[in-house]
């Protein structure tokens, strides 16, 4: 559809608009209009704004800590879990009952395995020290000689040097770089 109006017609419209008087809405006009509008949500006013309550999405909600999560597992999984937990509970209960009735038995067991445990730890420490320091270094340390002290000193020196290097590498200036 083609507009048949000429530029002179727009001039007339402009002059007619200029002749209209200036007017503005009366005080409270917007409130009176809004009073007739159905509002489904309370309007946010200064001082009464409440943060939107964040509801976790189902896929982000923690489920592993919930017992219900395990109750929803398939039946074989539930049976296996119940068997594991049940057997552990029964065993622990039996151990506690025996400990309450026969403390001498526990002292006996502790004496046997305690000595073995200390022997194992000593052998393990000796083996590790031998592997790390070498046969010569370990013999120096065990001899408690000046060379042994120097061996321990160089170990501490190496540890201190590595610590200083790491601190320098982690310093804020390097971090910024």
């Amino acid at each position: 559809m083609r507009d048949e109006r000429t530029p002179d017609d727009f001039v007339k419209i402009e002059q007619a608009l200029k002749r209209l008087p200036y007017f503005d809405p009366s005080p409270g006009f917007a409130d009176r209009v809004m009073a007739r509008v159905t509002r489904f949500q309370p309007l946010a006013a200064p001082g009464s704004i409440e943060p939107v309550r964040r509801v976790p999405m189902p896929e982000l909600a923690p489920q592993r800590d919930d017992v219900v999560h395990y109750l929803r597992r398939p039946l074989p999984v539930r049976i296996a879990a119940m068997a594991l937990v049940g057997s552990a509970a029964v065993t622990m209960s039996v151990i506690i009952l025996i400990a309450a009735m026969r403390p001498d038995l526990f002292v006996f067991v502790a004496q046997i395995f305690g000595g073995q445990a200390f022997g194992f730890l000593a052998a393990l420490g000796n083996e590790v020290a031998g592997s790390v320091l070498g046969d010569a270094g370990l013999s120096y340390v065990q001899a408690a000689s000046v060379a042994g002290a120097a061996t321990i000193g160089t170990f501490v020196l190496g540890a201190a040097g590595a610590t200083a290097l790491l601190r320098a590498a982690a310093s804020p200036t390097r971090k910024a770089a």
Partner: protein
Amino acid sequence: MHILMMWLLAPGHHHGAWSQIGLAISWLLVVLVIGFAVISVAGDKIEIVVNTIRDGVGKSIGSGLLGHLAILPGAVAVVVLLAVTLIGVLIIPLGLVAYILAVAGIAMFGFIAVALLTGAALTGGKSRDETPRGAMLRAFVTGTCAYLGLWIIAAAFAWMPLIGALLRSLAAGATFVAVTAGFGAVLRSYWRGDFSKRAATG
């Protein structure tokens, strides 16, 4: 964990300088191959551990020392937990092997992060690489050579009784701190939930 790592890294009770040098170089190559694979597959997680070390070297070393102390009780706990379930008695050996592998893996992961941080400091942030991953690999190689180079030097002087022992002790001390700091940083990152945060944010 330093016990296991240093036992692995140390040339051991092999006599002869050449055999010790060869063993140290072999371990250097093994660590490099493992490090390349880990950085390629889990470079973002390595960055998390590096940032944890930067957050506090002392905290990482302290956490690592506590972690070392917890290794043996942890193994005992694995055995006890498997034993009390009765069904798990049969898989105690497998459980122990899995536990040792897990601990060794954590230690290696941490050592890679420490080597990367050390290498980045030694190279001085030179921008000769086009990609960040390339810069990571360069820093890792530099740091690994720095730490395992100490073992190679110590092995080269193994024929001199006192000097060789002192150099070996020096290398052991530096490696101890590196492995301990890395081990502690991995534990701290896991404890603070940094890995899961990164996974959630993508």
